[in-house]
């Protein structure tokens, strides 16, 4: 038996700008065990409920993550609205769905770029990010921010989109879809990409279920679970089915995310076609008294917000369970048995976001 060594991976590592540390127990070039550690970017955002009132906390929720910013804000607002029994205007629900799907496209394109870079296909990385820039332009034109949307609000949305802009979005999304088709051909059919991704990092259906994996990680292992099926926002008004894959390997995770890109463009079209007229927000009076678990689907998977109010302006408790946190057990499961050179790519396949995991 060969000697065992421990190789520290991170918290600073070229594959990921965010700090996660893995103690990789190695036997020659093979990983035997991976012990994760986080805790470098904790910002104490949940504790801020003691200082900021429940309306101001929307801004804090939006800043938990720089990629799924809008869906964090949406989940927080959804939770408060459920506690306070606020009837949100239907147009606001549709706008929320539109922005959620735009964030899904930009997050998945970002991830596809990063994973292409991790497996050594740099031009594919640049093309993914070039297309993502066009999505960010739509987001900036409709919300005023490229990363932090700032359009979530308890009781509706802070901005409306006029019909002319909605038509422009359809045209731009069609253009983006055409370009996404070009890069997805490379992701799904290229020989070298398949050599790096197929058959590695397999997470079985049973393991995915047992370890509580979420999002594309779970759906790539053949489990049909998507929180959008809870029909929050306007997801109940459009036709869609979760994108699935069966193999549970790295390639299956790419397949699911590529599939979700096109699903998102389809959803955007449906949302714009069915967008009803009307107000986008209602006046909020009083303070939340009660508790609620809000569950929504971020690009990375299911996020849970536990919110508890006691009738005062400040919430008593806010707790966030982010998708990356739920996927960390899965990464410790898929790492043993793989080559050291595959570790960075394997870690990326869960689409880790450490700053939202630690908040």
């Amino acid at each position, binding site marked *: 038996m060969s000697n065992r060594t421990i190789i520290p991976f991170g918290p600073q590592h070229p594959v990921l700008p965010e700090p996660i540390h893995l103690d990789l127990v190695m036997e020659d070039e093979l990983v035997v065990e991976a012990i994760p550690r986080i805790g470098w970017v904790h910002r104490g955002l949940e504790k801020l409920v003691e200082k900021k009132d429940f309306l101001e906390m929307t801004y804090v929720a939006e800043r938990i993550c720089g990629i799924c910013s809008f869906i964090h804000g949406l989940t927080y607002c959804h939770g408060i609205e459920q506690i306070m029994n606020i009837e949100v205007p239907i147009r606001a629900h549709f706008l929320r769905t539109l922005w959620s799907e735009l964030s899904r496209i930009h997050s998945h394109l970002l991830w596809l770029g990063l994973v292409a870079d991790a497996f050594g296909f740099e031009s594919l990385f640049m093309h993914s990010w070039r297309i993502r820039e066009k999505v960010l332009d739509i987001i900036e*034109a409709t919300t005023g921010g490229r990363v932090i949307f700032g359009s979530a609000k308890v009781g509706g949305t802070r901005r409306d989109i006029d019909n002319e802009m909605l038509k422009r979005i359809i045209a731009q999304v069609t253009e983006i879809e055409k370009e996404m088709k070009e890069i997805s051909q490379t992701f799904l059919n290229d020989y070298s990409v398949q050599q790096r991704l197929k058959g590695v990092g397999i997470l079985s259906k049973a393991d995915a279920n047992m370890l509580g994996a979420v999002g594309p990680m779970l759906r790539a292992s053949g489990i049909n679970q998507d929180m959008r099926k809870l029909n929050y926002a306007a997801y109940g008004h459009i036709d869609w089915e979760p994108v699935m894959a069966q193999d549970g390997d790295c390639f299956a995770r790419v397949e699911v995310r590529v599939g979700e890109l096109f699903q998102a463009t389809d959803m955007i079209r449906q949302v714009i076609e069915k967008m009803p007229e009307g107000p986008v927000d209602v006046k909020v009076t009083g303070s939340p008294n009660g508790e609620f678990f809000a569950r929504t689907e971020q690009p990375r998977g299911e996020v849970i917000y536990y919110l508890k109010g006691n009738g005062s302006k400040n919430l008593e408790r806010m707790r966030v369970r982010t998708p990356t946190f739920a996927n960390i057990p899965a990464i410790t499961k898929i790492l043993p048995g793989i080559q050291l050179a595959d570790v960075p790519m394997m870690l990326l396949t869960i689409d880790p976001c450490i700053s939202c995991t630690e908040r």
Partner: protein
Amino acid sequence: MVLKSLFSKPATYMYPLLTREPMVGSRGSIVNHVDQCSYCTLCQKKCPTDAIVVDREKKTWAIDSMRCITCNACVDVCPKSCLEMLTTYSSSKTAAELSR
């Protein structure tokens, strides 16, 4: 895709020779048209990051652009509509420039 990339213009700008025009409605930085301001302090109260300091007595209004998160909450509540969200970002400053 290769041929298209070879014969098309670069996707990036030659910054700083060329700069990108901000979108209409983009949240860049806050400016106060002080001559119309009534120093009502509503913006100070609504600011989630306490970036705005208003003194009613001395009739002064100041914003710490490093604290401001350009959320637009102050512009939304301003009764005199003297606060404006510019589409351009405030330029980067050194600590010494900020304290001036």
